């Protein structure tokens, strides 16, 4: 079976600025793919290119194996949901949802005002459209809102109508451009679940653009992390989080942010930070600049110095209910280190001014000077094969 949406070598420039570079992406039937990245990384432009609202300079787009590169948005049979909802302000919710149906199911003369409805089979088509709108509205629980105009609705209600307008058409693909970012936090979490549920029920490939990594990890089957017009990594959420292919991916995904420690490599291939050996075998040449990344929850905190640990000065403890954060500084490091602890552990340690942190070897993520992940990282505490195996898993 061919991919539902396939992009090959998409490139785009606005004037001198390169917006997208060599984008390849294949979404399987029914898959939910999140495009995530900081603002300005080109993710919205990419979505518009997929929708046919923007033309790519290079590359090809196929929908169910059919090349649609040159086709207008109207001929691509994809439905888009916008961040600003983009509801037609002069039409009621019902009319908003009817319009895309009218454009597809009625011919030009049947769409004429007043006389159109009496031409040919227009009447039965209109009745069917009305039924479809009612059905989509029932799915989204907006039946009571159908005769209101957008100005008379709350943000969440407008969002539902916008989803309804996309849903009612039964398109081949849903494209969503930060659909939740204008909602307040609690509604956002709620709508997340609803969109996932809608996607599951419709069984249609969904490409979802967001700058919120939590949204991307929580909703998508696969996450594509974009930076500076390129897809740095595309993988399932767990892999993206645990095995980031690039330093930028590691930094962008995860909250609180991953801890970064610059390492110098000595003659024995050990990674050293602040005069302390942190990584026993770094798989890098002597003198190379290597960055060690450790997630806050994998940073282990000790009261006493240990092998492969680094001394840090405690800045403060932050209690967040279910867990607690330790903010600390290591001598010679600009960025503070953050460790995620259980509240019990934090209570135990909170009177210490000085602590020691280390990272389990399988939790150490090493990146070279270009930010590329260095494979096969390990320490002497474990057999060499263990380190490799844990990364391959």
């Amino acid at each position: 079976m061919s991919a539902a949406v396939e992009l090959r070598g998409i490139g785009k420039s606005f004037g001198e600025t390169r917006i997208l570079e060599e984008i390849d992406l294949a979404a399987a039937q029914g898959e939910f793919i999140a495009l995530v990245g900081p603002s300005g990384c080109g993710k919205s432009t990419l979505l518009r290119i997929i929708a046919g609202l923007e033309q790519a300079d290079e590359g090809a787009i196929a929908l169910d194996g059919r090349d649609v590169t040159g086709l207008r948005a109207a001929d691509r049979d994809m439905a888009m949901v916008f961040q600003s909802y983009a509801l037609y302000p002069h039409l009621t919710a019902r009319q908003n949802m009817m319009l895309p149906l009218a454009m597809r199911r009625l011919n030009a003369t049947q769409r004429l005002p007043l006389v159109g409805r009496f031409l040919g089979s227009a009447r039965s088509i209109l009745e069917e459209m009305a039924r479809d709108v009612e059905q989509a509205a029932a799915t989204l629980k907006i039946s009571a809102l159908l005769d209101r105009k957008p100005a008379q609705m709350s943000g969440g209600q407008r969002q539902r109508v916008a989803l309804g307008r996309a849903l009612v058409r039964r398109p081949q693909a849903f494209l969503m451009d930060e659909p939740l970012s204008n909602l307040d936090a609690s509604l956002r979490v709620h709508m997340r679940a609803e969109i996932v549920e809608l996607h599951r029920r419709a069984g249609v490939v969904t490409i979802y653009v967001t700058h919120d990594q939590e949204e991307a990890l929580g909703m998508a089957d696969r996450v594509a992390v974009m930076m500076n017009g390129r897809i740095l990594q595309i993988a399932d959420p767990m892999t993206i989080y645990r095995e980031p292919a690039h330093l930028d991916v590691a930094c962008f995904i995860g909250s609180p942010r991953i801890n970064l420690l610059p390492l110098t490599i000595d003659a024995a291939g050990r990674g050293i930070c602040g005069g302390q050996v942190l990584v026993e075998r770094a798989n890098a040449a002597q003198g190379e600049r290597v960055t060690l990344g450790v997630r806050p929850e994998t940073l282990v905190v000790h009261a006493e110095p240990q092998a492969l640990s680094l001394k840090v000065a405690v800045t403060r403890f932050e209690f967040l209910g279910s867990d607690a954060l330790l903010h600390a500084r290591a001598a010679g490091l600009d960025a503070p280190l953050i460790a995620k602890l259980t509240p019990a552990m934090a209570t135990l340690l909170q009177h210490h001014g000085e602590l020691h942190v280390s990272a389990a070897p399988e939790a150490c993520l090493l990146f070279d000077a270009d930010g590329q992940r260095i494979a096969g990282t390990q320490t002497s505490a474990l057999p060499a094969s263990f380190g490799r195996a844990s990364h391959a898993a």
Partner: protein
Amino acid sequence: MIGRLSPPARAARLALLLLLAGIVTFPFLFMISTSLKPQSEVFASGLALVPQHWSAAENFAKAVTRIPMARILMNGVIVCASIVVFQIVFALPAAYALAKLRFRGREIVLALVILGLLVPIHAISIPLYAAARSLNLLNTLSVLVAPFTLSVFAIFLFRQFIKSIPDDLILAARSDGLSENAIVWRIILPNAWPAASAFAIFSVVAHWNDLYWPLISISKTELATPPLGLLFFRAAEAGDDYGALMAATVVITLPLILFFLAAQRLFIEGMTMTGLKG
């Protein structure tokens, strides 16, 4: 804003506004007053606004019978309505293209539109007259409409308004399957009502009151627009019956004032109709 001014300052401002309003409306009051007076009182010295002897019926009867007043008013309505409709029909797609579409030469076209704003009708009236004559259009209603169907002012005004419509709305319309043409009429036009009614006020006022072009192109009384009709009326009445003349003036001004008030209310309603943003 008003609440922050001190009472004396407010009073002073109000007085100034009243004075200016009085100066502006005085000619209208005088026009109405004269239209109610008999011939003898019109030339009496002094500025009495209320006539001593009422001859309103007489003056207005003359105004509507000596010239085909109904016909003339109808001409005005047909001409002004046609002009406004054509102007919007032609200007809106152009304005949409200039505001929202990217194409080569857009800036040059826009510059030409703005340049077009600087060309007065008087500068091109001779070529227009020559063209109308060779097309045998002189002394028709068409000649009153045709030169004004393309308004660069409308293009410019609508462009500025359409630029404020969010791009997402247009992108949504495209992905909903609307053609560019359908976007203009189904999405832009309904949302551009405030601009359209503001423009309609300008356009109707200008063309209802226009004397220059009708005077050049029309010589038959039954094709006259209201101001030209007034001129014919004055010629027919030898120009000394000011009471009747003012009565005729009142008759042709009244529809315009009523239109203005109605359009103004629409205009304000349009301005408060928001809801584009989330």
